[in-house]
């Protein structure tokens, strides 16, 4: 198994080097989005401040091979300066966030003419619903912005599709577990309601999350 993992890592490194070496033929596209929100009631607080540069790159370095990546470069939130020392920290003044949403390689007709393989960080949308879709549960929810409900994070894994006429058998293996992102901003408290017990006052509350084991036994598989 170790050899296999080593081989995979080596292959991916070689592929990255190859992509870099090509340099041309890459199709770039993307967008710049600004999102600023203000509350209409109360003190008219600003509730969201985001600048997002979305960069997508596509490349077909070899026949029947396609590379796709999507990167968000963004500043999100407001300066959180607590003391004078913070004024020298650019990460506090203008927090920058890099989010690799997707980065995968497609191998079309891999080994068999009717077999496709996708390896890397990817969004696997299952089912037909867009926003509320109980079957779309392979990728964790990204609830950071509740107004963009339905957004999912990409998951690192492998997606294999075998096409048989009008049908396709699809298998997904997601070795690494990524937890969902909870809302931030105005909606931060929606998932952490205060607990009130009759006659009792809760002074402190701690919680802990048990994550799946970081090994192949804890990996998600679906087909």
């Amino acid at each position: 198994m170790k050899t296999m993992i080593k081989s995979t890592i080596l292959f991916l490194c070689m592929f990255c080097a190859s992509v870099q070496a090509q340099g041309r033929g890459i199709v770039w596209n993307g967008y710049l989005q600004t999102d600023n929100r203000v509350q209409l009631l109360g003190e008219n607080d600003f509730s969201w401040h985001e600048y997002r540069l979305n960069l997508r790159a596509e490349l077909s370095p070899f026949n029947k091979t396609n590379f796709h990546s999507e990167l968000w470069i963004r500043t999100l939130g407001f300066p959180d300066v607590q003391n004078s020392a913070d004024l020298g920290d650019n990460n506090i003044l203008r927090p920058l966030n890099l989010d690799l949403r997707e980065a995968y390689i497609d191998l079309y007709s891999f080994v068999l003419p009717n077999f496709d393989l996708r390896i890397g960080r990817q969004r696997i949308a299952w089912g037909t619903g867009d926003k509320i879709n109980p079957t779309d549960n392979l990728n964790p929810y990204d609830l950071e912005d509740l107004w963009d409900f339905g957004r999912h994070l990409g998951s690192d894994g492998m997606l294999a599709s075998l096409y048989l006429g009008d049908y396709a058998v699809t298998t997904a293996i997601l070795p690494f577990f990524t937890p969902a992102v909870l809302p931030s901003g105005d909606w931060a408290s929606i998932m952490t309601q205060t607990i009130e017990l009759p006659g009792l006052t809760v002074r402190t509350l701690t919680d802990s999350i048990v994550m799946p084991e970081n090994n192949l036994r804890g990996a998600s598989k679906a087909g």
Partner: protein
Amino acid sequence: MKRITKTTTILLPVMFITLSWAQPEFTASQILERVDSVVNAPQDQTMNMKLILFDKNGNEREREIVMYQKGGDKRMGKILAPADQRGIAFLSLPGGVMYVYLPAFKKTRRIASHVKNTKFAGTDFTYEDMEAGAYGIKYVPEILKHEGSDHVLKLTPRPEIQSEYSMLKLWVDEKTFVPTKIEHYDKGKKLCKLMTRDKIEETSGYWLARESEMSDLRNGQKTKMIIQDVQFNQGLADDLFTERHLER
């Protein structure tokens, strides 16, 4: 002998003129058959097109699209530009089966008949307009009149076809059988869209309208479709016209 020669000399031009006037009378079905055979003549075609969208104030937006067609009943179109729409694709298969792939959702959806009146990627072409398929399969033709050098046909959707239009009026060039103008009438039998086809020329032995314009008379918008590059009979595989390739 001289008399016979004289008579023949007079009769021949008269016969020639008479024959010239007596052009073959086509029935509506025959005209539509010829239209279908001209429009879908190539075994397959690959077209790179530019779509220019004009709003009612004359502002322009552009889309670039590649369209593949095999025979008369398989068609796939993919948007190449702008960046925010790149990858949106549709697939039209025999029997009115249509799919659309939306990269933002990473999903392929079948387009139900009742939503084929939805505009494709903000253009004035609906999915029904973009659908492949012979006119003869979808419509019952009827000759309305002869106008200039065009046959004018009234096309009524066959009972088994669900269409957003109550009828079409089709102007067909009498010599080439290429459609030159199409009027679209809504369910209230009111003219709602007008398609004109210009720069009709023969390319590699096939008739082609290099420019088409679809005007939506309800909102004053229009979309111009310009064929920038076309290739015929490249041997496109059936495999290309599948959901699998739609998502690539």
